[in-house]
């Protein structure tokens, strides 16, 4: 199946000279949830803004469902919905009016039944007559999502959808995004909350300083870069690590009370059984042990710091 979004050689240099994107190549598959992960200023919003037509690229080609976003912008844009990062809404319009406006703006004939469905799905139906400025921040974000969905897009961009949103609403938002995916919408979200990418995404792209460092299935990414750690709480502290244990490259922690062994999650042989055997031969006793798998956060930090 051809990708629903195909980005090739995308470069953006702002008038200030700031190089925001460096030759980015990326394909988004139809129906997936793709998370674009990166620190502030990494180029996430620039990338989204170019695909949506808000920022002009310096170089490169973007196809949305086969339509060039520059030459064939009408066809491309009518397939895309965008939920911006900032809560930028009109103030005096009613919820109903602003969502209907968005549908018209994107070239679709009025369809009150569909707008009603969108508002009900987003728990906005009761608020449809309210002026937007009277709504809470969370509700305003829902209004922005409703606006983005008003023209029945096939691709939805969510730029930092849960920034500054409370835990409950965040859960709601996640459920909503999954529901949209069920209905066949392809979703691209940017986030700097790693747990969000870990929770939601099928695939993850890590972007830093304008470069796409890695694009991988979430599970693969975790496997490939995921470290596991075995920590042994010793009965008696050690001053140094015995030479006999040098094969495992252990670390001594907590003033010699803990031995830490780091290995890769996908190693075929972890070396744990032999390590424990050797420990017992050396009469190093331990009272407890635990293992820890590195989170996406750790992976991310190591990826980004490697590139510095």
């Amino acid at each position, binding site marked *: 199946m051809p990708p629903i979004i195909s980005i090739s050689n995308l470069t953006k240099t*702002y*008038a200030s000279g700031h190089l925001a994107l460096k030759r980015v190549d990326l394909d988004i598959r139809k129906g997936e949830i793709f998370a674009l992960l990166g620190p502030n200023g990494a180029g996430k919003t620039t990338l989204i803004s170019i695909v*949506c*037509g*808000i*920022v*002009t690229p310096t170089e490169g080609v973007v196809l949305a469902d086969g339509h060039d976003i520059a030459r064939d*912008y*009408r*066809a*491309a*844009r*009518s*397939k*895309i919905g*965008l939920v*911006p990062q*900032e809560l*930028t*809404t*009109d*103030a*005096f*319009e009613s919820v109903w*009016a602003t969502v*209907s*406006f*968005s*549908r*018209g*703006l*994107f*070239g*679709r*004939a*009025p369809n009150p039944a569909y707008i009603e469905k969108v508002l009900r799905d987003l728990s906005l139906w009761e608020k449809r007559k309210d002026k937007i400025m009277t709504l809470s921040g969370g509700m305003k974000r829902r209004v922005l999502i409703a*606006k983005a969905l008003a*023209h*029945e*897009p*096939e691709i939805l961009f969510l730029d930092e959808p849960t920034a500054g949103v409370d835990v409950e609403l965040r859960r709601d938002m996640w459920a909503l995004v999954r529901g949209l995916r069920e*209905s*066949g*919408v392809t979703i691209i979200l940017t986030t700097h909350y790693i747990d969000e990418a870990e929770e939601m995404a099928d695939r993850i792209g890590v972007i830093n300083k304008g470069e796409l460092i890695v694009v991988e299935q979430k599970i693969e990414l975790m496997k490939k870069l995921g470290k596991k750690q075995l920590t042994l709480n010793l009965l008696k502290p050690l001053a140094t690590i015995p030479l006999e244990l040098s094969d495992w490259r252990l670390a001594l922690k907590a003033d010699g009370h803990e031995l830490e062994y780091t290995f890769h999650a996908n190693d075929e042989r972890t070396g744990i059984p032999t390590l424990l055997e050797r420990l017992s031969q050396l009469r190093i006793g331990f009272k407890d042990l635990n293992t820890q798998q590195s989170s996406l956060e750790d992976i991310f930090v190591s990826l980004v710091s490697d590139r510095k």
Partner: protein
Amino acid sequence: MSSAANPAAFNRHGVWAIYKFEMARALRTLFQSVVAPVITTSLYFVVFGAAIGSRMSEVDGVAYGAFIVPGLIMLALFTESISNASFGIYFPKFTGTIYELLSAPVSYLEIVIAYVGAAATKSIVLGLIILATASLFVPIKILHPIWMIAFLVLTATTFSLFGFIIGIWANGFEQLQFIPMLIVTPLTFLGGAFYSIDMLPPAWRTVTLFNPVVYLISGFRWSFYESSDVSVGVSLAMTLGFFVICLAVVGWIFRTGYRLKS
């Protein structure tokens, strides 16, 4: 979700959505949009028409009170077209809601048609309201109603385009006020809204001919009373010329994305 069918060559739903949005904004601010300019114009009328006009003889065979009506309508048309159109496009830039316009499948031409069309509609309606108000004070005859409407529509459209340009150019509310306050209003006052340029000393008359507003007011007044400072053909040509210049600037703005896209 069903996919959008092949989008039409002209996004009429989009144009209509923006137009309706802009008109709804005018209705929400009915006082600012209609009542305030009508009151302002009535005040001009009381001061210049009744108080001063009663002591003045006729100008070009027209009673002074009636003579100033076309100029007053033009004055309102200029300022309201500019402020409506400039505010209409500046405000989304200011609040950030412009993202939606830029990401929508609307062409630049459609955006201009919608914003400028709405702003021009509002000022044309306003111009007609002022005309109706004025007719309560003085007898008004319109010798060339079709030309009167033509000048009204052309001027409203041109100044709405001009306002649209200002709205895109402006980086703050002061700049939004700057051109209407410091350029358009003085040019209008000096452009023969309240007098015939024949009443000026010859040197000043020549200077005045460099003021484009003279031609707009003169042509409009001609459609009422057949009295004009310059020939109506020149008026029409100048108005059309200004229209074309504004159109070209708007075209350039959208081609380059000036102050809209980075």
